């Protein structure tokens, strides 16, 4: 019995005999849309109508063994009652691949090589675009982008507020010391402008206490700053307004992240809140990636620099990365932080997997377990370790850097 060599290609399913003679050719669909669907199915190892037809014909013609390139095809072959052999890189397949353009002409699907390549390029572009679109539909990436936007806004606000304080200090230098809160400062500059407007009455309207209002208006009256015209002040006020708008945008984004995070990752959100959860996803590169990370890696996400330094020099690995922002960690004494980080990371690893693969909600249970464990840590390790007593340290195994 002769052997058949089956290969799925761009132009269709081809079957050769041992002498590399083309026995069978079931062409791929001719419309772009169907063609792309065909390519997607082959990629995922699903059975295409073309493959089914080819296998059916082989069986009719008395073939029993079929050589294929990969396990995914082999499965389909045995479903049709034929015996598959897997031999990737076999000569017949290589030659088929080499002759592909000329085979496309031989089978009459295309008239010239140019026409073939034009069509090929067109379809490959659409194929890739479709896969890109599918990728973009993942909602977790929205939360990731939003948290990155917040980080950008924070940086921008800091930059602008520093400028605003310096600029406005030409006029009213004392205010810089008196009002430390940035949004408050920007609001005063924007609402009042000229320091002669810093009256007790105006300040009371903005919600200041009598005491504070008097202090500010006194400072305004005796200020050593230069007098500025409305024309000059106007531009400072515009900057102040932009800062205020940025704060507003930041708040709306906070709300947005909360909504999205509750949808895509309810369990992670339950443990560390929407913002930290989104930040973890941002560093990992999406929910799927986070779900596939071990707890030990999650624990040090965001501390890559320290981790790799530790690996290189053999020093102490970091106890926590961005997880430090989790209140029970940064509020605890130093020697308890690593233990708490380890617990939280372990639960986060579970939560991420559930969020990505099933979506059930067990957040409340996880939170309870974390709380219990933290209490236990607080009790067991209430005192700092004596001198250089060995601290139980989480030792992430030398993790290789993942691709960005």
């Amino acid at each position: 019995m002769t052997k058949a060599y089956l290969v799925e290609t761009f132009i269709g399913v081809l079957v050769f005999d041992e002498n590399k003679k083309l026995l069978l050719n079931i062409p791929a669909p001719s419309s772009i849309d169907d063609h792309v669907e065909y390519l997607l199915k082959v990629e995922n190892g699903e059975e295409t109508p073309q493959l089914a037809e080819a296998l059916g014909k082989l069986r009719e013609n008395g073939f029993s063994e079929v050589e294929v390139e990969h396990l995914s095809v082999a499965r389909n072959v045995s479903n049709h009652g034929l015996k598959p052999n897997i031999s990737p890189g076999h000569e017949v397949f290589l030659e088929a691949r080499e002759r592909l353009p000329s085979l496309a002409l031989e089978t009459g699907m295309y008239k010239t090589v140019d026409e073939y390549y034009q069509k090929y390029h067109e379809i490959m572009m659409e194929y890739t675009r479709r896969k890109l679109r599918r990728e973009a539909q993942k909602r977790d990436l929205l939360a990731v982008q939003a948290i990155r936007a917040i980080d950008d806004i924070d940086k921008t606000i800091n930059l602008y507020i520093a400028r605003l304080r310096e600029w406005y200090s030409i006029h009213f230098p004392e205010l810089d010391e008196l009002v430390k809160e940035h949004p408050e400062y920007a609001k005063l500059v924007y609402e009042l402008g000229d320091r002669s407007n810093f009256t007790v009455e105006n300040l009371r309207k903005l919600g200041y206490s009598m005491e504070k209002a008097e202090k500010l208006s006194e400072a305004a009256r005796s200020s050593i700053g230069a007098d500025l015209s409305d024309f000059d002040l106007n531009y400072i006020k515009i900057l102040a307004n932009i800062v205020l708008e940025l704060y507003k945008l930041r708040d709306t984004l906070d709300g947005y992240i909360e909504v999205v995070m509750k949808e895509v990752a309810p369990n992670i959100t339950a443990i560390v809140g929407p913002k930290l959860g989104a930040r973890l996803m941002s560093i990992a590169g999406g929910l799927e990636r986070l779900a596939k990370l071990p707890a030990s890696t999650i624990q040090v996400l965001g501390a890559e620099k320290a981790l790799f330094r530790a690996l290189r020099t053999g020093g102490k690995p970091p106890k926590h990365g961005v997880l430090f922002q989790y209140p029970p960690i940064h509020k605890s004494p130093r020697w308890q932080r690593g233990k708490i980080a380890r617990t939280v990371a372990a639960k986060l690893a579970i939560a991420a997997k559930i969020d990505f693969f099933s979506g059930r909600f067990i957040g409340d249970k996880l939170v309870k377990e974390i709380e219990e464990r933290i209490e236990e840590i607080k009790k067991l390790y209430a005192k700092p370790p004596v001198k250089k007593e060995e601290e139980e340290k989480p030792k992430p195994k030398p993790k290789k850097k993942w691709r960005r």
Partner: protein
Amino acid sequence: MSEAVSVKPHAKYFGVYVVEMDDGSVRLATKNLVPGTRVYGEKLFRFENVEYREWNMYRSKLAGALGNGISEMPIREGHKILYLGVASGTTASHISDIIGVNGKVFGVEFAPRVMREFVIVADTRKNLIPILADARKPYQYRHVVELVDGLYADVAQPDQASIVADNADYFLKDGGYLLMAIKARSIDVTKEPSEVYRKEINTLKERGFEIVDVVHLEPYDRDHAMVLAVYHRKR
């Protein structure tokens, strides 16, 4: 902006040109396949009615390898090349210039973010084929890639040598060449770069590659090397 004084074909490398500037500096360039368009903000030069694109040695590892005198540049006109880790297509666009309209670059990239940029480049350059797939799973794109003359790999993965070899088994013809960029820090930060290179090269040898040359990419890239090898298929 400084002007090009002369453009000459490179003495050693096919399809690569040496541009001499009026300030005396010298740069590499390729003939622009799509005149008038830039890919990544590179400089364009016009000389005797032909447009050239500067090939920045700091941006492209292949240019860095040429700048450091790799023994041979095997890419020729009309070649088909499988490019693993094509990213946004900076290097691929220059390969596209060299191979011309009859060649093909099958550009495999896993990250959707940079693939989006590559698709834009491939839109105007018909010899670039975008493939959004994982280079670890060559069987997932076995149906859309032809047998190729060369393999270019810049995947920065710990197991990149075996990824490359797996792809060669499917797609690289006997006697075909390999250009592989090794980023030592991506493979193992704890080891010395030279040790990492040796390990990767040994893996390649075991899988049928004959090493022709290894060049370090200093000062263009730190702890990087480019390997040139020839593939001998096992029968």
